[in-house]
């Protein structure tokens, strides 16, 4: 995978993840091009695009577009499922996720992504593990003796 972009229907960037080194200028150019190309697509077109030597796989969930760039020989359908799984993970975490959740808690969205993908490859696909994570975090709220939780409460 090369990069993942989330942007709104108005073309506002909501999240960006780059898996290969790129300069800021290149990034800005790509973001601009991606939003224009993807937003211009007709509703019933296919979810894949050829862009330069990359494949762009995009999907719209409500008002948010997810746009993933992969190498040309990658499996497009699989990439589409990568997007879908990420949305499911967000949904599990936020509970019926909407664009606002991601706007206001974008750092959380990044953390979830970092658990899901690492260095541009799938790391953990299990929704159940994230599920368990949420359960155990509920437990932690009650358990004030956790060493680092104290640190968080009272400062170092």
């Amino acid at each position, binding site marked *: 995978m090369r990069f993942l972009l989330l942007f709104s229907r108005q073309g506002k*960037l*909501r*999240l*960006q993840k*780059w898996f290969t*080194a790129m*300069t*800021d200028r290149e990034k*800005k150019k790509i973001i601009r091009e991606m939003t224009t190309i993807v937003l211009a697509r*007709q509703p*019933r*077109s*296919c*979810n*894949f695009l*050829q862009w*330069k030597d990359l494949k762009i796989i995009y999907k719209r969930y409500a008002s948010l577009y997810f746009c993933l760039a992969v190498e040309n020989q990658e*499996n*497009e*359908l*699989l990439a*589409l*499922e990568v997007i*879908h799984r990420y949305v499911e993970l967000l949904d599990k*975490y*936020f*509970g019926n996720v909407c664009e*606002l*959740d991601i*706007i*206001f*808690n*974008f*750092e*959380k969205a990044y*953390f979830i992504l*970092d*658990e899901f993908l*690492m*260095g*541009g*490859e*799938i*790391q953990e*696909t*299990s929704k*159940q593990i*994230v599920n368990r*994570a*949420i359960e*155990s*975090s509920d437990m*932690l709220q009650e358990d004030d003796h*956790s*060493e*680092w939780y104290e*640190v*968080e409460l009272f*400062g*170092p």
Partner: protein
Amino acid sequence: MSDVMEKTLTALPSLLSLDSQPGSAKLSANSKLGNLIRGITELTSKHEEEKLIQRELSSIKEQVSSPNTTMRQMKELMVRTIYCEMLGYEASFSYIHAIKLAQQGNVLEKRVGYLAVSLFLNESHELLLLLVNTVLKDLQSTNLIEVCMALTVVSQMFPKDMIPAILPLVEEKLSHSKEIIRRKAVLALYKFYLIAPNQVQHIHNKFRKALCDKDPGVMSASLHIYLQLIQENPEGYKDLTMSFVTILKQVVMGKLPMDFNYHCVPAPWLQIHLLRILSLLGKNDQSMSEIMYEILDESLQRAEMNHNITYAILYECVKCIYTIHPKPDLLEKAAKCIGSFVLSPRINLKYLGLKALTYVVQQDPKLVLQHQMTIIECLDHPDLIIKRETLELLFRITNAQNVTVIVEKMLDFLQVSEDNHTTIDLVGKVAELAEKYAPDNEWFIETMNTVFSVGGDVMQPDIPNSFLKLLLEGFDSVEEDKKLRLFAVNSYVSLLQGEPSRLPQRFLQVICWVLGEYAHLNEDVEPDAVLRLLAKLLDMKSSTSETKSWVLIAMTKLCSGGAAFSVAHEVSETYGSSMDTMLRQRAQELQHLSQDSALQSRVFPRSGSQEPVEVDSSLSFLDGFVSEALAAGAAPYKPPHQRQEEMSRSKVLSLEPYGLSLPISMSSCSVTDRQSPTLLSMSSSLSGDSAELSHKASSTTLKLDGVTRVWGREGYLVQREPVQEAAQVEAPSPLRSPRQQGDEDSPHSQTPTPTPTPESEQEKQQLASSLFVGLASPSSVSLMGKSEQTSQRFRRKARIQDKPPTSGEQINNLPPGGAADLLLDSNVSSELVSSLEQTHRNSLDLTANGACDAELPDGDVKEIKTPLSTDDSVLAAGLSPHEGPDRPKDLCLTSYLPAELSGLSHSEITLLCTNQSLDLSACHVQKEDCVELVVFIKNSSDSAAHQLQMQISCEEIEVSCVCDSPVEELKSHSVTVCQYFLTVKRPSVCFDLVGMVYYQLAAGSLQTAQFLYKLPLTSFIRPLAVSTEEYGTMWLAFSHDTKQNLPLMKDEREPLTATLNLLKTKLQLHVVEIIGEEGIVACCLRPDQQCLLHCRMHAGMLAAWLRSPVPDLPDSLLYHCQRALQER
């Protein structure tokens, strides 16, 4: 202590939801970030937003630099900064604070710090060096969360040069007790492998341990590395095939924990990874493929659910089945699967179906015929992406009969496509098809006109290059050449009479060249009329000065005779005082040559003979001038890289860590330039600034061999002939062979006419028949390109040599047309060819399996990459699978080795090809002045073979027969030996010898067997013993050179000596002398084909500079040096 560890571990996954629970997420809308976001949404203009953000940023800036800000506040500030950056506002002041936060904060703050760093900085940012210590500390932390964060950030972005510092710690984590840490460590190492493969070479056996990890998650992560490793060297991992098959079997059977399921499908990502690995291992390898058949069948059957993810698996499965050694019933199932994709109403599946069809069309063109109506529909699909993919498919099935329709479709698409990348790609394809299959001159020129107008200035420069080369070199028939050129001239004259200002510059340049060279062919057009048309181009505002100089050159060629003189005079007056030196130069030439017609005709001879020009790219004719200048006290010339080096050395404070950046960039640039030795050699040490100029100029202008002027040994060179590659084009045979027109599945009209409006079903049918014509005919069962060769017009001979048949099955299926063509190549007498063609149709099935090939290592096994244990290397040396059982046979062949060779060491005798009657084996012997190829022909049938004839050919190698009378008759079950001396004509990294044996069995029909023998350049390299003085004189005399940085054996005590000794033993080079940090080395192929190496240690690399009198030799040798050093 372990208690604490355990606790942190259970808390680990919960990190995601630490400070705000799910559901409470919206609460943070009240935070400062929330206020900012709301503030922005309320704004109405971009300008207001800008003001607000700037205000926000300056307040953040103030706070982050205040000493009273706590880390907790810092975390909040950082989140807001990330938001501002995401909106596109720069906040570089905060970068250093992000690093500080990652360094000093507690776990939660650290996490935000790391996130900010990974979003703000990229791998080459210098601030990243400050992060190294933090990462080191966190990797050693007892807090597992911190270890995880460090591993994550390391795999996201880490400075390449700092990898060694943390590598041992990451490596250590491979045996960590927690699965999640092991998994992240494996992925981090995978990332290191991608950016710096050499660094992780020593831990390959640990990867094996990861593959065998008891946790499927870790095993799954290790497959990323294996996929990469196997892609680079499938031979080295064949022993793992069984393991991968077993893993896949377990996954498919649902033996993994439920956690790995995705929408009820067991571990789809893992399955797909394994399928990809299997297809790499099974490619061209029957025995490996046989292990996989069962599980592939199983996968196809299991994946039946109607969900995207199962289709993704199916697609990968189908690809795998078509990649490995074919099995009929699996192919049938896979074909059915592709069919369901193509016919699916879901557009994504249709797309993938088209992609799959494109992938398999070369093996199974009939499948395309089954779906021709769907393909026609896709061609008119409203979605351009689908259309584009369909054209890709059509491109693969193009032949001489459908080329006009397909090219027309492609050109139609080009008119609507706005994407540059697509245009470049498609234009290249159209040009390729036109060159290969053009039915006639008019069509060819007109198509190329469209290519040039549409492709304009974005297309690949090699398109106009090869077009002009084609016009220049022509074909066998002088008459045809003239017609083609004449047509081009007429077409261009009328274009110039129209609106030339709308034509792209590149096209104008092509036009100028053609008119300059060939306008005289059209006797109806006066030269001064052409001159006036050209002069019009000079006045156009849009013409670049590059185009203008092309115009002036063309005029210089044309201006002979009175009327032309005045135009020429006028133009040269105007441009003689141009500010542009190039133009002024051209104008001067025009002026002088137009006045002196004798000189003009000497400089531009009309009937330009085709002798190649020898370009003295070292500019040695300037030596006298240079030495005079040196004697007069001028500073000696230094090539740019040396100047740069010295500058960086003289810097007092180097900001670059370890000074690595310079050599890295150098090596990368020389890698890209590797293919063009002549360009590189421009910067030889003797040449003056002029060489630099011409280098630059040549990179901006079209690289037309012999078109732009060159300076040669005698001064000004005027011949415009290609430097390499003599004109070798096959005889055009416009007659279509009748069997190509036979097409049972799609009857077609004799003259396929394009019908681009397939509204009615009938029209669609008609389009289908013109598109898919020739697909089902027996002549094109495989290898679409090859089977049509008899009717190709504009195909260059070199193209076949570019793509030698590489797999056994490809040759097996070689259709008669292709075989006949190969015969043509090997210069067999036409009589034999015609008799062959007649008998071929009858004897096809007999000869069908008469060929295969074997990839040969160069005698010594060390040539093969063997990162594994020694048993593996034996397996790797086993090469082709069908060779195994034949080994005993080879042993007895040794006794047939000619007596004079028995004393010399020979390479392993390899079985090349076997059919019912003949077994062909070969080996090579390295002699002092050449390589001797020994081919063993064994007649394994019960009847004698008559009229045995053998042909060996290779474009780059001179093959001469040792014994001049090859055996006429070979008795049943006997062996004969053919010997050939091989010497290098043109160096190359590896040589492919194509061999054919013709013979007749008792039955009487003529049979053939074909084989391919690969020889690396290294078998030809011999040490060249010279003294340092001789070396010095030779160095100055040689004109072809190349430079590159090679890895150095740094761990040795004397790295330079150790490296050179390694090269000496591996490649048989002669080390002339080593002085301090420099060493000189020499070798040769033949006594007159020397190559000299000059090596110098620089910044931990070996800066190698190779020179030779033979083009391509430095590049090819460099390749082998590089390999030798990488594999040590």
